[in-house]
């Protein structure tokens, strides 16, 4: 289910800040990205790597998805990051500066080697590539489809605007094109699209507007650097009442069909096929996470 779990909020936490790492279990985000890359200056790379490793060792009851943003593999830290982190079993690697399918495949091969050597299922570790240069935007679909480990594409606006040679604006025209490209590539590949961080922590209304915009475009989540933004993003991604009602009807129709022993399901004369069921389940999962429905969705419903 890795591909469809809710990732409305993917919170970056600097790997070199113990005071923040200690609070990771308490944040109500869907995923956490422990950062060894941009948040950590060169002098502290080793310390951060050790700290993140020890933090993961001590965090026994993980209640959210854990990613580690390693340094790019073509830097002197990237491979050491992987060696230190993989034994602590993160769910996935946030892969920065992934510009081509080949780069994704290089990480894929490295993860596969580790999995094989340690008796893990091949494909155990996921990859979330950062699409954060003009080149990577143009290669987005090829990257998205390069390996099954990739469950989403994550847009990184800061590096993108730098590589494009434009300034980042509040109005967002500068990001319009890459946002469209990335969400189309992700959706065409059947994976999630995660939007870039919104950096003005004081402006919750602008954050809400931006999140609502990317939700309408087809994004399923957003990265963030400040936990204060979690609630606003969750509210923006919360399904509307009529979406929840419809999803519950779909699930109920399936249940009745299973009970009646029929494989063909219809709702108000329309056939209910697998993608509709999947979407309904996703809707209910997020609704439950948001406290909008009282019981978790029975995911077995898909299998009858």
């Amino acid at each position, binding site marked *: 289910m890795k591909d469809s779990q809710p990732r409305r909020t993917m919170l970056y936490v600097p790997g070199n800040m113990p005071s923040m790492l*200690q*609070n990771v279990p*308490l*944040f*109500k985000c869907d995923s956490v990205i422990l950062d060894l890359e941009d948040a950590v200056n060169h002098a502290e790379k080793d310390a951060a790597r050790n700290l993140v490793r020890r933090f993961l060792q001590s965090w026994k009851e993980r209640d959210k998805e854990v990613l580690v943003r390693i340094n790019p593999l073509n830097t002197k830290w990237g491979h050491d990051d992987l060696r230190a982190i993989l034994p602590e079993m993160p769910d996935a690697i946030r892969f920065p500066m992934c510009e081509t399918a080949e780069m994704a495949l290089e990480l894929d091969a490295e993860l596969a080697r580790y999995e094989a050597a340690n008796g893990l299922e091949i494909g155990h570790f996921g990859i979330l590539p950062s699409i954060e240069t003009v080149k990577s935007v143009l290669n987005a679909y090829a990257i998205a489809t390069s390996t099954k480990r990739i469950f989403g594409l994550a847009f990184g606006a800061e590096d993108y605007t730098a590589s494009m040679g434009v300034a980042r604006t509040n109005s967002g025209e500068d990001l319009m094109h890459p946002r469209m490209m990335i969400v189309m590539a992700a959706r065409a590949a059947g994976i999630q699209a995660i939007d870039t961080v919104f950096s003005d922590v004081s402006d919750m209304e602008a954050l809400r507007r931006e999140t609502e915009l990317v939700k309408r475009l087809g994004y399923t989540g957003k990265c963030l650097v*400040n*936990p*204060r933004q979690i*609630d606003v993003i969750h509210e923006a991604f919360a399904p509307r009442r009529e979406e929840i009602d419809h999803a519950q009807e779909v699930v109920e129709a399936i249940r009745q069909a299973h009970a009646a022993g029929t494989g063909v399901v219809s709702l108000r004369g329309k056939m209910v096929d697998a993608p509709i069921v999947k979407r309904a389940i996703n809707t209910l999962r997020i609704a439950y996470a948001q*406290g909008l429905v*009282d019981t978790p969705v029975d995911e077995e419903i898909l299998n009858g």
Partner: protein
Amino acid sequence: MAKNSLGREIPETFNGKSYIPYRDPHSIKPETFHFQRASRVLKRNYSGASKVAGGLREAIIASGLKNGMTISTHHHLRNGDRLLNDVVREIDALGLRDIRIASSSVHIVHAELIPYIRKGVITALECGVNGPIGEQISRGELECPIVVRSHGGRARSVISGEVPIDVAFLAAPYCDEYGNFNGFYGPSACGSLGYALVDAQYARKVVAVTDNLVPYPALPISVAQNIVDIVATVGSLGDPKKIVSSTTQLTKDPMGLLIAKYAAAVIDASGYLKNGFSFQTGTGGISLAVAGHVRDMMRDRKIKGSFGCGGITGFFVDMLDEGLFEGLFDVQCFDLKAVESIGRNRKHQEMSAGLYANPFNMGAVVNRLDCAILSATEIDVNFNVNVNTESSGLLLHNTGGHCDVAKGAKVSIIVCPSIRGRLPMVRDEVTTITTPGETVGVVVTERGIAVNDHLPELKAELIRRRAPVKDIRQLRDEIYAVTGAPRPVEFTDKVVGLIEYLDGTIIDTVRTVRA
């Protein structure tokens, strides 16, 4: 030494007086004590002449203050107050010794008193203290017996005559020559004079000290001419800008905001958040963030509350002005916006400490509170709360209204980060018990919510809403897993202070820390 019901060793006598060990929050009656009511001698003043005696020195002389007597001041100017320091300086200059201070509170600014304590001018504190005086006393570096009382407990002790105040020096920011005054206007305006109102009624001599003598009559009246003996004029009462403690801003700390969100969820689940809701928070970034959530919920649901209470901030003033409350009960103004409001809005009601929280009367305002947010320096697994000492063992904080409000409110909610400076705040035992656990409803930390057994329905409702409800011992275990179990602070046997419960019994002691 006798053990009180919470297992704390209490001396039978302290500084020459005998005390009753704490039993429980309810059973002590006024009849338990031999003092029933402070009475002032009847006086007759034929004259309509001005009561202005001159400056502070002349007023002290006129008051008849003698060695061994007790004086008081109010702390409405908080850390901006200079009156207490000035009065003690004049007392010393007049050669008086062995004076007890029974002010409503003593702040960091009053560290200036330390030399006068060493010199024997001041020999006892019948009130709690904030800052260096308490620190030095608990280090054994300063000798001065201290009895810490809550706001309600202090009002009780003054009204009952347990602590007879010989002369009250009351800062009077807007005052006329015949002794009428209020705190609403003038260069040292501090708003409500809630604590002073008790002293004005029960002290044997009342001196109104003003830096703003206005033509008669000084209206509206908070303290009236018929109970004021002397008026003194000074250049300045202090700096009202320092009324504001640094903590009247909403927190931005993500953990603090998480605590606030959980506390708001507790209020929401309590069932009291409906028309007629009454609420108190203190200052502090977390408390105010809770108030922010409460305001938003009241707005969204079109709830008209009954009253907001306690020390009042601009935040509550905005809620009143917006129509979210019928009124405010204000025992002290925490910022200048509150000061400005109380001077113009009759629904912003000045409230005496006796009305606020004295347990020995026909009903204090805290009895009408639905939900209250309170803080803590430590909490133990029996929900006992410490606000007086820190985990270092040093006496650094006064009680404020903590135990009064915890006892009065239907749901008292303690908000506290689970860890401060690597130390666990939910522990096996607190260093000092200020507020007994049986009067505490809920403890909220960023790691979860612990609900006391006397609120089973609230607990069930929070669980139903999927709030992170945990047994308080589980909460302690989770915190200890990060911090380790704290090594207890080592104390000597020397009792240097008493922590009085609101009913006059002794709930705990302060001992000097072993160096």
